């Protein structure tokens, strides 16, 4: 106790948290005046493993940074190594990578919708959204053989091809998912009980979003049009899409951005399937990587950096992964200041926190 202040520990175990993070909430009555985060409960030291694993094997370690955006982590690392070794993957490999990227984004955003519904106590909406997430996982399984860790990407391309008939089979499934999400969208965007938990809650202005280093839907939900897919990696330079933003800046705005990005991802996948070239999927890799490179990609939760420092040996000297959830922590701490204690769980979920990513 300090004056009329007290500290309420939030986490590391909490009903809204699938993963452990601890936040000390300094409160005055029911208002939070300061939030002090601490992490490390699932820190696995994956970055330092790069000095002990063959640079080719490290792809599988990178994938295991997180179970939701595992494909993106594998891609980020692979892309950095491919730049260092001057490897240009085939166009078919790039298109398939883009499809898997966007399936991961749909999966992640739908997962978030479900968690959000669960956080504000709308259990049937939670189950309905996750029904469509299963369809995405089925597609990922059909393409890669895995539902969480895919192990399909490797330096130089892909470990296996995804046949055209499997890809075409995704088209009716995508329509079903979009139809289902449209029905859920009505609840998220216009149900009065839901609006009461989202509208005006956790407001971050455009200026604060930039100043505090926000990433992804958190940034775009505050009206900042930055999406690292426009950097043109994989096949993103060959598909059409617009950056989705919201001027609301609150939990509602972030929810809107994620829902619209689900439809956008489905559209990008359709474009890729229509235009996928029919050539090889792998370029042979010779030698060892040498030099430094940083890849920046757009993971479902936002921009992620993969820095690799290699010295022409089997083992790499340093891999640094800056994940979007880690970048969003300062804004989360800022957002919690001044909120009611009862709103803390919703606000933590609205960031779409991935603690495995944050801690690595």
């Amino acid at each position, binding site marked *: 106790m300090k004056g009329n202040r007290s500290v309420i520990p939030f986490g590391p175990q909490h009903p809204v948290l699938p993963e452990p993070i601890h936040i000390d909430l300094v409160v005055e009555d029911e208002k939070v005046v300061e939030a002090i985060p601490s992490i490390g409960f699932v820190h696995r030291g994956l970055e330092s493993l790069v000095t002990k694993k063959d640079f080719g094997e490290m792809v599988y370690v990178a994938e295991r940074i997180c179970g939701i955006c595992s494909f993106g982590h594998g891609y980020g690392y692979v892309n950095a190594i491919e730049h260092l070794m001057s490897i240009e993957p085939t166009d078919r490999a790039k298109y398939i990578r883009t499809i898997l990227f966007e399936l991961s984004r749909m999966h992640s955003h739908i997962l978030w919708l479900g968690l959000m519904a669960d956080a504000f106590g709308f259990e049937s909406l939670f189950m309905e959204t996750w029904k469509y997430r299963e369809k995405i996982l089925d597609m990922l399984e059909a393409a890669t053989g895995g539902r969480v860790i895919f192990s399909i990407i490797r330096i130089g391309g892909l470990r296996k091809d995804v046949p055209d008939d499997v890809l075409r089979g995704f088209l009716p499934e995508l329509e079903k998912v979009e139809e289902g999400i449209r029905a859920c969208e009505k609840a998220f965007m216009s149900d009065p009980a839901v609006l009461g938990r989202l509208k005006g809650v956790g407001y971050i202005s455009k200026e604060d979003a930039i100043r505090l280093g926000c990433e992804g839907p958190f940034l775009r939900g505050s009206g900042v049009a930055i999406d690292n897919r426009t950097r043109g990696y994989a096949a993103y330079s060959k598909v059409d899409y617009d950056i989705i933003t919201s001027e609301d800046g609150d939990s509602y705005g972030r929810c809107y951005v994620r829902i619209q990005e689900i439809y956008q991802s489905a559209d990008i996948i359709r474009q890729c399937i229509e235009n996928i070239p029919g050539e090889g999927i792998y370029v042979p890799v010779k030698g060892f990587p040498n030099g430094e490179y940083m890849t920046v990609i757009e993971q479902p939760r936002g921009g992620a950096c993969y820095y690799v420092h290699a010295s022409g040996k089997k083992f790499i000297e340093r891999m640094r992964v800056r994940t979007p959830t880690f*970048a969003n922590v300062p804004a989360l701490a800022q957002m919690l200041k001044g909120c009611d204690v009862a709103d803390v769980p919703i606000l933590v979920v609205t960031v779409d926190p991935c603690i495995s990513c944050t801690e690595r």
Partner: protein
Amino acid sequence: MLDNTEEIALDTLLNKVKEMKTDGRRVMQICATKIGEQYELLYTFVKEYDTRHIKVTIDPDTHVPSITDLFENAYLYENEMHDLFGISIDGISHDYKGGLYRTAVESPFA
């Protein structure tokens, strides 16, 4: 060498970071790399999609000035460098004093 990277001395760090601020950039990441017995600190700044890096090489016992007066969100990266690599950083706006990473194994690790 990483593209768009400037290697500078530690005593010019704050001035260089101020230039980044004036240029309208934001902190994308800060990290440390152990090279032999020294540490390389890599500061990455971005303006929309244009990425620039500043690299500073320091000895293990060197004290590094915090850049949180210029970039508020840098406190997270500076606390991380302190907790995982043992880098001493002076003047962090939110200094968790080793409490950001609560690990069962004693840190720093590198």
